[in-house]
């Protein structure tokens, strides 16, 4: 364990002023997750105060639209008591001194909430010490106002800039001696803070990965096999070299890791359009390998067949579910399914790389740069010390950019070409070479007693395997709701072998499981004649913390009281059960706990006699703890998450045929559009728990809330997505 006195380090900044570095323990989410204390801490967070008063704060994490480039500096600036108008934010490169440089899992808030504030508090304490020394007064008599140290008894004050150089000579405070602000006195945290990037965004400044430009840079495209991992046999690449603007065209022999460099043909040209146009003349013979059964229709048939037998493995067994079904007053069986999905971040995958003299420089819109750097090192055979990765703003991530396939492709192509190269994928590349949200099939049975109590529940979950193990993000845990709240419960799983790679997509696992479970629970409530809010109350029972079962995804447990809190709030705000809605209009409720956040949502939807769905309104209630750090962004993220779920439910799903994804663009995968987008009203329930993240947990309830609203509106129960594949017309 690192000695506490090494937690902070101060030095003179170049050109004077103060430079503060701090160690953020990699396990700093301890505060929230009750994990062991600090380990492997290194100097990693920077705060620079210049003599002119400018405060420069390094934002260490990748920005993909979640607002973390604002959020982390806000935490430091608050405890420093900086004047926000003096603050400049600098994006960090990938740097081994910064653990947790990742945009994923809604982890930035729980991991950084305390350590970042401690950095700011240390800076403030040293500035106070410097002022106290200069005035020869006790530090305890000094206080701060934004950007200044004040000594009230004598009426003196000094700006942070004037104190910075002297503060750099002050002893570094022990982290245990730091006094953090009383949240009631926050001036920055909790305020609606406008994102500093917006002026650049609305004027078209080149701030995204795709905008990176280097002198002498060439443009590349890379054609892979649409059957993932297919091997290149031969190509007409020699013909491609003769086409206009083409500077290089070559075959690439990759490996077998679907997350690494794969077989393909690279085309490099003076402009991207020339490269992509030349690529259209490519003729490649692939060895696709075994694609038997790799079809969406086969998957569905296999799942149905598997559902008739016993699950391959038992995930959880409490009591005797079959006996409970025998005693239940209402028993229901239903099969639910959801499709494969592509992330479709609007900025297609891209990366710029310059390999030269054994050094590799990379500009990558990635959510997860460290594994990318390791992948490039291993593939190119260079030490990681020779690789620099610049983190560039990404036009959306949603989990897609947790993989770094585009990074290793760009680096490899640059290495072969011997100069700077920007690799850019087409939309079709992006949709057909994704790490897909896995499809899933659930065969449910539920039993409710005469009092409206859920007494038995079973799910045979048919999911996918890859290379013999459960496919990425295709698993379910034994803690899946309503487990632990139903006396007799069975969860079993079976797996279908899959060729296509899968991976995390915003609210991984929860984005599909939430739809299936919350729709079926709604179905059970209606079957038993119980209002869904009341049904939820009965399942949740008294407020209590239910610990998670041991396992790789063991979390801090499930708080039934927090779940009920947001259900009651959303019911109140939406006027649940109190409104007389017109014929064809209905409200649906769903609730879900994921990524440490408790969310309940109500959707009101209207279905016309022609079967057209109008989503009229969405109400969101969330509990992410004691502090909404930036209410302006929090509302935006919650609205976007809910509408992301609505978008998936309405119009998105991929078809796999002969091992390849059929859909390639927004004509067949339909993103939500303005005319479909309802107002989304967001409410936060502030509770006495550590603050947690908001990139994901508002998504899962939106899909089942919509499907449940459609049932309320029409009496039609939708058990598979997307909705565009269903005929909801009155005559159907």
């Amino acid at each position, binding site marked *: 364990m690192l000695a506490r006195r090494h937690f902070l380090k101060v030095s003179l900044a170049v050109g004077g002023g103060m430079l503060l570095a701090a160690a953020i323990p990699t396990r700093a989410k301890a505060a929230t997750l009750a994990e062991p204390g600090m380990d492997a801490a290194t100097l990693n967070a920077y705060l620079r105060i210049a003599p002119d008063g400018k405060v420069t704060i390094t934002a260490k994490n990748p920005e993909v*639209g979640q607002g973390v480039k604002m959020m982390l500096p806000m935490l430091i600036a608050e405890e420093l008591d900086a004047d926000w108008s003096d603050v400049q934010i600098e994006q960090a490169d990938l740097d081994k001194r910064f653990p947790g440089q990742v945009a994923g899992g809604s982890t930035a808030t729980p991991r950084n909430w305390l350590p970042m504030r401690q950095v700011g508090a240390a800076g403030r304490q040293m500035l106070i010490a410097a002022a106290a020394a200069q005035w020869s007064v006790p530090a305890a008599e000094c206080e701060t106002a934004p950007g200044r140290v004040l000594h009230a008894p004598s009426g003196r004050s000094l700006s942070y800039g004037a104190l910075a150089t002297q503060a750099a000579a002050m002893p570094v405070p022990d982290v245990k001696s730091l006094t953090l602000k009383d949240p009631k006195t926050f001036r920055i945290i909790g305020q609606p803070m406008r994102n500093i*990037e917006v002026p650049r965004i*609305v004027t078209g400044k080149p701030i995204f990965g795709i905008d990176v430009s280097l002198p002498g840079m060439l443009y590349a495209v890379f054609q892979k096999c649409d059957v993932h991992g297919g091997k290149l046999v031969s190509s007409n690449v020699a013909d491609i070299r003769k086409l206009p603007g083409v500077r290089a065209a070559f075959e690439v022999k990759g490996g077998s890791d679907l997350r690494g460099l794969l077989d393909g043909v690279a085309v490099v040209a003076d402009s991207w359009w020339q490269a992509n146009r030349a690529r259209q003349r490519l003729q490649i013979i692939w060895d696709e390998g075994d694609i038997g059964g790799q079809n969406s229709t086969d998957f569905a048939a296999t799942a149905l067949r598997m559902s008739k037998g016993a699950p391959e493995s038992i995930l959880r067994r409490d009591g005797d579910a079959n006996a409970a079904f025998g005693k239940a007053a209402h028993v229901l069986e239903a099969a639910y399914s959801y499709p494969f999905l592509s992330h479709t*971040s609007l900025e297609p995958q891209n990366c710029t790389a310059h390999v030269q003299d054994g050094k590799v420089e990379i500009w990558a819109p990635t959510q997860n740069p460290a594994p990318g750097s390791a992948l490039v090192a291993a593939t190119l055979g260079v030490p990681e010390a020779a690789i620099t990765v610049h983190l560039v703003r990404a036009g959306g991530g949603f989990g897609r950019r947790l993989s770094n396939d585009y990074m290793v492709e760009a680096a490899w192509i640059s290495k072969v070409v011997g100069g700077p190269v920007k690799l850019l994928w087409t939309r079709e590349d992006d949709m057909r070479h994704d790490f897909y949200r896995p499809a899933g099939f659930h065969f449910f049975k539920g039993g409710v007693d005469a009092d409206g109590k859920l007494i038995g529940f079973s799910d045979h979950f048919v999911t996918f395997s890859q290379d013999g193990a459960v496919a990425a993000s295709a698993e379910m845990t034994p803690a899946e709701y309503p487990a632990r709240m139903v006396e007799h419960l069975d969860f079993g799983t079976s797996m279908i072998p899959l060729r296509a790679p899968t991976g995390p997509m915003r609210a991984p696992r929860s984005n599909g499981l939430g739809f299936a479970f919350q729709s079926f629970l709604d179905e059970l409530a209606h079957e038993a004649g119980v209002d869904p809010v009341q049904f939820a109350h009965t399942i949740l029972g008294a407020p209590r913390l239910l610990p998670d079962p041991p396992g790789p995804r063991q979390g801090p447990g499930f708080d039934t009281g927090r779940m009920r809190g947001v259900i009651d709030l959303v019911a109140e705000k939406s006027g649940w059960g109190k409104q007389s809605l017109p014929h064809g209009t209905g409200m649906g409720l769903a609730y879900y706990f994921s990524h440490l956040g408790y969310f309940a949502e109500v959707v009101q939807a209207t279905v016309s006699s022609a079967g057209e769905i109008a989503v009229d309104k969405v109400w969101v209630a969330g509990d992410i703890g004691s502090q909404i750090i930036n209410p302006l962004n929090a509302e935006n993220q919650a609205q*976007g998450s809910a509408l992301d779920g609505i978008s998936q439910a309405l119009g998105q799903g991929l078809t796999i045929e002969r091992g390849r994804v059929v859909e390639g663009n927004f004509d067949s995968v339909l993103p939500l559009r*303005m005319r479909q987008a309802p107002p989304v009203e967001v409410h936060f329930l502030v509770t006495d728990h550590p603050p947690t993240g908001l990139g994901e947990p508002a998504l899962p309830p939106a899909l089942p809330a919509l499907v449940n609203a459609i049932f309320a509106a029409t009496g039609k129960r939708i058990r598979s997505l997307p909705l565009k594949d269903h005929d909801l017309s009155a005559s159907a």
Partner: protein
Amino acid sequence: MKYILEVNGAKRDVDVDGETPLLWVLRDTLDLKGTKFGCGAAQCGACTVHLEGHPIRACQTPIASVGAARITTIEAIGESKIGQSLQAAWIALDVPQCGYCQAGQIMSAAALLSRIPAPTDHDINAAMSGNVCRCATYTRIRAAIKQAADAGRT
């Protein structure tokens, strides 16, 4: 082929294949990176620019078809009062998340407001539904258009 374009009020000479889409001439030849590539199929609107004040999808506009028409991009939309109002509203309401689509959104919104100074929700739906926001900031885009429209009336 050589073409003389009028981009953001300035004459620009380019030498490219006539089939090259305007999008790539703007981005890679003229280094105007504000106009974005999202789908290459006129499905997402990220590449929206104005041709003689009308919104078009630059990814589907061959350079040979442009002729002497005036091209306006996000880099210059702030030179008009409507563009300025929209940019100010986008900042005030903190519209973007990732921000990638927002140049195209603003270009479509500017064309809408120049045609209909006080658009209804229906007008906004009709004019803006060709622009995808993957982060789904539609609530704020709608509010920002209305705020900019209000600013234009005062």
